[in-house]
């Protein structure tokens, strides 16, 4: 009978999904016993600021990422211009730049006391108040910083989407009398919408969860409010309630995303289509397009990297110790391990919700994926509480029954750390994998099943080859994200275990930005490797 088989399948998803959803559930559970007194204080004073600032930040970043990502992806995928081949992967590089680091570097350069403004003052003989200069440490500045490092999410997905649109489609719209501009607005853009929305959703979730940048810029958002309420006012309940409210915004966002494509099913064309040839531009226009595409790379990567190099250079000899190699290795291996784990989980979940359109399977997966928008520290604590509870009870039972104490089995181990990463970044791998799955026609599943393949065989022989691009993308994205991740690493790591992000934080938290530059630069360098691999994957999946 089918139900038994179905149940095995369901449980094999339900158990890991619930494990991953646990931290998020711990957060939402707080709403059941609200801290009314703290809540009243927040409502009367700062809650409105938190909501407004967080929403502006997330939507501003989403819009910025959409604009830069879609624009550059369209140019790179449709036109032949000078430097296109290099630019198409250079455009991914800002992904390697952690948001808090780009914020530090731009503040160092553009702040009132920084070199840019000092030179302007010296040159014109001005002093404070004589002139206007945009303030980098503002909400607008934060939106700019986050857009510059998060647009690659949109770019990456948009580029594949545009490339996959067959040449015949362009011909068809030409025949119907559309200009290239009309083709973009009326055909290409609507067709790419699911990919664009996924990219924007990822960027917005990152913006909601950002702590480093807003904290440094002094902007009151949900994330800074969570910390303030939790630690400063000593109200864990109040903080968890704020986190729950933040997560509900994100949940709403995701529901809207799903709803917006409720009636549309986008499927990958079975056989390879003719890819539209690149259109060559006139030299003057080429120059314009080249500089347009260069701009985000310059601002999002090259300029801050040079500033970091500039800071790191004088101290490099002092800081480059044998210890440093260990830091690089720790960061690298941890990120690799987490990436593999996260993608395996994403495949399991993606596949399950495809096979069983069942709320019992889908709900915990959706809940777990919310972790992406919850600040790393909150996730870390959400992981810590249940694990410590399990440790405590196993320890008690073992003592009662066998007279041995087992101590900490899960807390303070790499298991806890990997669990936290899986929760935090499941959304990234899941989005990638699901986007890939969505483009495989259900009829392919059916055909394979009717030819006698088991669901596992369908996965291995049909989906894996077709999904290779999405899976590699997911691997690289999670790798880079984990490499940059700070708060969960800081709190959950075992004794004597350091990573590059931890070292960067230690120095930067002491306001020693110049010393923090070297480990920051190392994060960027290690991240470049997967980013380049990612770019090659994307090229390969183009199938040319």
């Amino acid at each position, binding site marked *: 009978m089918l139900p038994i088989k179905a149940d095995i399948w369901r449980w094999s998803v339900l158990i890991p999904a619930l494990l991953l959803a646990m931290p998020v559930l711990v957060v939402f559970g707080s709403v059941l016993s609200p801290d009314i007194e703290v809540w009243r204080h927040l409502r009367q004073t700062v809650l409105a600021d938190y909501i407004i600032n967080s929403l502006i930040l997330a939507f501003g970043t989403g819009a910025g990422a959409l604009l830069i990502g879609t624009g550059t992806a369209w140019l790179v995928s449709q036109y032949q211009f000078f430097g296109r081949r290099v630019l198409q992967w250079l455009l991914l590089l800002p992904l390697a730049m952690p948001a808090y680091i780009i914020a530090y570097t731009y503040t160092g350069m553009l702040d009132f*006391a920084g070199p840019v403004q000092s030179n302007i003052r010296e040159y014109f003989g001005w002093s404070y108040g004589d002139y206007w200069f945009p303030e980098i440490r503002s909400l607008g500045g934060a939106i700019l910083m986050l857009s510059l490092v998060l647009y690659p999410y949109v770019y990456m997905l948009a580029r594949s989407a545009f490339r996959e649109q067959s040449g015949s489609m362009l011909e068809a719209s030409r025949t119907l009398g559309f200009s290239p501009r009309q083709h973009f607005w009326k055909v290409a853009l609507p067709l790419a919408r699911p990919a664009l929305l996924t990219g924007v959703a990822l960027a917005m979730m990152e913006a909601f969860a950002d702590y480093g940048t807003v904290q440094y810029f*002094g902007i009151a958002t949900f994330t800074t409010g969570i910390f303030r309420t939790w630690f400063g006012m000593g109200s864990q309940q109040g903080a968890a309630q704020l986190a729950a409210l933040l997560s509900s915004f994100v949940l709403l966002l995701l529901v809207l995303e799903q709803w917006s494509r409720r009636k549309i099913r986008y499927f990958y064309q079975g056989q390879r289509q003719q890819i539209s040839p690149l259109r060559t531009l006139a030299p003057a226009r080429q120059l314009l397009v080249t500089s347009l595409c260069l701009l985000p790379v310059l601002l999002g990567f090259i300029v801050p990297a040079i500033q970091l190099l500039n800071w790191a250079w004088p101290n490099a000899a002092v800081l480059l110790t044998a210890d440093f190699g260990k830091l690089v290795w720790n960061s690298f291996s941890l990120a690799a391990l987490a990436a593999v784990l996260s993608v395996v989980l994403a495949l399991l979940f993606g596949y399950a919700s495809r096979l069983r359109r069942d709320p019992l399977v889908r709900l915990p997966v959706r809940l777990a994926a919310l972790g992406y928008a919850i600040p790393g520290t909150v996730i870390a604590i959400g992981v810590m509480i249940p694990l410590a509870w399990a440790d405590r009870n196993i320890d008690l039972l073992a003592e009662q029954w066998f007279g041995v104490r087992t101590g900490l089995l899960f807390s303070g181990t790499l298991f806890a750390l990997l669990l936290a990463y899986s929760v935090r970044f499941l959304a990234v791998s899941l989005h990638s994998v699901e986007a890939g799955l969505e483009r495989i026609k259900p009829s392919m599943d059916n055909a394979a099943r009717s030819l006698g393949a088991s669901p596992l065989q369908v996965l291995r022989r049909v989906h894996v080859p077709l999904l290779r691009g999405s899976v590699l993308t997911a691997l690289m994205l999670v790798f880079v994200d984990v490499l940059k991740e700070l708060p969960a690493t800081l709190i959950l*790591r075992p*004794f004597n*275990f350091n990573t590059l992000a931890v070292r960067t934080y230690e120095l930067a938290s002491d306001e020693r930005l110049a010393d923090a530059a070297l480990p920051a630069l190392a994060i960027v360098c290690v991240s470049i490797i997967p980013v380049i691999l990612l770019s090659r994957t994307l090229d390969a999946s183009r199938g040319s």
Partner: protein
Amino acid sequence: MRIKPTLLVISALASALLGAASAFADEVNIYSARQEELIKPLLDKFSDQTGIKVNLITGKPDELISRLASEGRNSPADILISTDVGRLYRAKQQGVLQSIDSEKLTTAIPEQLRDPAGQWYGLTMRARPIMYIPGKVKPEELSTYADLASPKWRGRICIRSSDNIYNQSMVAGLIAHEGAAAAEQWAKGLVANFARPPRGGDRDQISAAASGVCDIAIANTYYLGGMLADDEQRSVAEKVKVFWPDQQGNGVHVNISGAGVAAYAPNKDNAVRLLEYMVTEQAQQWYAETNHEYPVVTGVQASDLLQNMGDFKADKLNLDKLGELNAEAIRVMDRAGWR
């Protein structure tokens, strides 16, 4: 099959990572909010002298306390090190510390810089004075923290966000002396005098003052010390002078970095030994000087760099009070519109 090499790589990575843990019979485990660089050399010296191996995790203080709390009686931690008293108080409130009865500690550390119940001990001290730009501000114009709320300072003061624990402790101190209503009144006046919305850290306030954004910055002494010791930032830091406020009254607001022994410390004796080692003259000298802080043990000299900032009378309020009033301080600042 492709899968086999992948598995090999994963298992190699996993074993390399897990292999890091090792068991030593004689050891002491530290959760430290003070960064590795500012403590490790001292711990190494302790290990050399005693043969006790020191294991270290650094992190943000609040998260370390949460970790301690959730690990409960299974926690391997012996010592919690924090960079301010507010967090030590929070740790004490959450029951993750235990009282220590050590004569060496109580005689070495002045009463107001340690917990009345012996749960935490100050190891270094820093002050939060007024820093001003000579030429724009005459020292005679300055007097007390309270005076910074007067309208004559409109648009002339730089201070960081109220998210920061040093500001929270400072306002808590004010509440302890003057009451919450007066503190709120003061905070409102101060906010009205801000030269710009609060942003950045303490060093940023000092450089803002040095480059003309404001005439007065409020910052901790060790940040100024760190800038003076840094070749790149020295010229900026030399533009400000330290003024010690409230010398006729309660004294300058001070804070500590300190430590306590964890409630379930598996190596309690070693932990106490380490704390006692930290208040020896030699350790104090290094520990304070490396972060440009004041030693807590009387008789141990502060660094020349700090002595150049001048002598001062410090607030005698027991620092435990600052922790107690921390939440109240945040509410006061929220109501005053201090971001």
